[in-house]
């Protein structure tokens, strides 16, 4: 009786794990890419079924209203990225940047990464969640270094060191949460189970919880890419294969954010503990403003969109820091929209860098002339990410700003300033890349347009008309977040 109930949760873990094992032994990248896409699709179906029927929480695994948002988003972007990855990797093999031997591990690693992220999202145990995030980090480290150029190794090394330090701090915070829980919950496994902790957190020692949260925010915040701790992020995005940049920006940052949100909920439920909001608002604002200025100095297209990711993660953390039903709703919506938009932008950028053979912004000119579809997709993507109507990011940013205005107008000022500065920087660079005299590299692109169109279609739809079903669902989650 229990087994069929747990099916869907187990499936989102078992499918990536099993297919990773198959991919290690399967020959050839064509088969590999097919298995990869198939597995990602199967995971998406299972994740979708969690929306309808949800098994009860166990000691290790659980799915609740908050995590299901992340899981479905994760599975969806994971699937579309696997489609994009198939055509991207085919091109990389053709020009000899990647060899068959390395690719066998590439596809297996992709599935291990999906496994790690799904495990982090469905775990009901703080220790297990930590292990899963560590696994996902290590996997991406290997993937970032896959080209083995100077820059790729440097980026992977930097990512590894900073990510490990972050993850170490997060573990210390997790231990402190257990120490705080022990007098109330008792010794043993129960002291790490999320559903038990959130019930009894009101009686925990607030001082210990405060200290734990500082470590957790810094630790997982490093993985989110918040501003003083972001140094790994642009390098890792720029030097790894583009499908990995898409997954990093679209998914892994969210998973780390999910961990932060979990602990924020713990603190919010203990009234004697410090309010987590101001800390998150500060880190968020610093990230937004810092990233906005840094955008002007970018010469590398992937690096530029990496900084844009820092900016948007800042906005999201800011929104959750402000708190309350409206800001939380806006934060969730913004997170979803950012994942969809940013990964689609990376799909576009991946194909652009392949046809132009460079990532330098100065060498990419006149895309709308030579490659109309890619060029205009990039224009649409940048407009969407800048928060122009009618795209979904406009809706979420508008909601964030208006709810901040209602609560504390002075906080809205730096946020709006950051948004406008970033807007200017992105449009400035876009103009050169999309229009004007075309630069060399006019061979037609063999791109898979379906993933980009699907993502931008969803973002556009969210901006024009958000179905009441989704609105109601997000509102419910926003209430849970407090």
């Amino acid at each position, binding site marked *: 009786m229990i087994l069929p109930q747990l099916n869907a949760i187990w499936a989102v873990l078992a499918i990536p794990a099993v297919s990773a094992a198959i991919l290690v032994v399967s020959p050839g990248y064509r088969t590999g890419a097919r298995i990869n896409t198939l597995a990602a699709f199967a995971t998406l179906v299972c994740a979708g079924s969690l929306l309808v029927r949800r098994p009860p929480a166990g000691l290790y695994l659980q799915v609740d209203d908050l995590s299901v948002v992340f899981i479905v988003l994760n599975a969806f972007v994971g699937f579309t990225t696997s489609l994009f990855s198939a055509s991207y990797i085919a091109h990389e093999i053709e020009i000899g940047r990647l060899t068959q031997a390395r690719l066998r591990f590439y596809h297996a690693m992709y599935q291990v990464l999906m496994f790690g992220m799904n495990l982090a999202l469905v775990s009901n145990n703080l220790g297990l969640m930590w292990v899963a995030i560590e696994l996902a980090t290590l996997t991406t480290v290997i993937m970032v270094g896959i080209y083995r150029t100077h820059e790729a190794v440097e980026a992977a090394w930097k990512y590894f060191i900073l990510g*490990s330090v972050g993850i170490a701090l997060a573990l210390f915070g997790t231990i402190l949460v257990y*120490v705080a829980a022990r007098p109330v919950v008792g010794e043993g496994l129960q002291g790490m189970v999320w559903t038990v902790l959130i019930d009894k957190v009101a009686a925990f020692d607030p001082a210990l919880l405060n200290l734990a949260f500082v470590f957790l925010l810094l630790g997982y915040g490093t993985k989110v890419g918040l501003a003083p701790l972001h140094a790994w992020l642009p390098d890792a995005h720029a030097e790894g294969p583009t499908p990995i940049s898409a997954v990093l920006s679209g998914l892994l940052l969210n998973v780390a954010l999910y961990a932060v949100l979990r602990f924020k909920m713990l603190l919010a439920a203990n009234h004697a503990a410090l309010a987590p909001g101001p800390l998150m608002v500060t880190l968020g604002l610093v990230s937004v403003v810092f990233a906005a200025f840094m955008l002007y100095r970018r010469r590398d297209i992937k690096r530029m969109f990496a900084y844009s990711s820092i900016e948007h993660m800042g906005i999201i953390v800011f929104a959750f820091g402000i708190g309350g039903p409206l800001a939380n709703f806006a934060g969730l919506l913004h997170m979803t929209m950012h994942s969809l938009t940013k990964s689609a932008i990376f799909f576009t950028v991946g194909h652009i860098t392949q046809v132009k053979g460079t990532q330098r912004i100065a060498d990419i000119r006149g895309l709308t002339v030579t490659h109309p579809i890619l060029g205009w997709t990039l224009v649409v993507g940048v407009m969407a990410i800048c928060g122009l109507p009618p795209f979904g990011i406009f809706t979420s940013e508008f909601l964030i700003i208006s709810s901040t205005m209602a609560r504390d107008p002075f906080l809205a000022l730096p946020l709006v300033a950051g948004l406008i500065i970033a807007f200017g920087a992105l449009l400035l660079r876009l103009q050169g890349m999309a229009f004007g005299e075309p630069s060399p590299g006019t061979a037609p692109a063999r791109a898979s347009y379906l993933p980009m169109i699907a993502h931008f279609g969803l973002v556009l739809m969210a901006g024009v008309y958000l179905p009441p079903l989704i609105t109601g669902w997000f509102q419910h989650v926003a209430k849970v977040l407090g």
Partner: protein
Amino acid sequence: MSSLSFDVAHLLAGGLVLVSFMLLYQARLSALINVFGLHALVLALSVGWQAYIQDAPHLYVTALLALVFKVVMIPAALHRIIKRLGIHREIESAVGVGPTMLAGIGLVALALVVMLRVTEDADRLAREDLAFALSVVLLGLLMMVTRRNALSLIIGFMSVENGLVLAATGAKGMPLVVEISVAFSVLIAFIVIGVFLFRIRERFETIDLEALDRFQETRE
């Protein structure tokens, strides 16, 4: 809890902090690796003692893992690596020994003040253990900041992990999941690092991070 068992636990945890200080000022790589072995040995003893006084047999596994893996295998592998790379030379430290030690003392004081103040309600052993563990973690981070050499960065990171294991075992009844995971993650981390070392060696003819930094500067 008898005062003897408390004193021994205290002694071992304090010893770990002391060895962390020793790590800070080691000038030669091979000496640094040996001191790291000592660090791991003190950790293994400390975890073993915790297993004994808490009557928690699963902690013996953690102690054994630390003993076999971090005291024997990792130092042996690191010795082989530096021999193969031929780098028994001095460690270039970004900050001198004096300021580093002073900063270390400051960090330990900070750790004690912070931890002892917030854990007033917890039992005596757990609070002191946590304070020592935080000191070890901070000293490890300090080492990572002050060293430029890739290998000493790795050792600094592993001493941070040792501090985390100390904290996890000091928190009585902490679920096994975490202990295994810490040991396991060190294993994975080491494999990853190993891969990197070879690649970095392959490409740069040096494992000094300054070589990596130069690329950063020329690129942008």
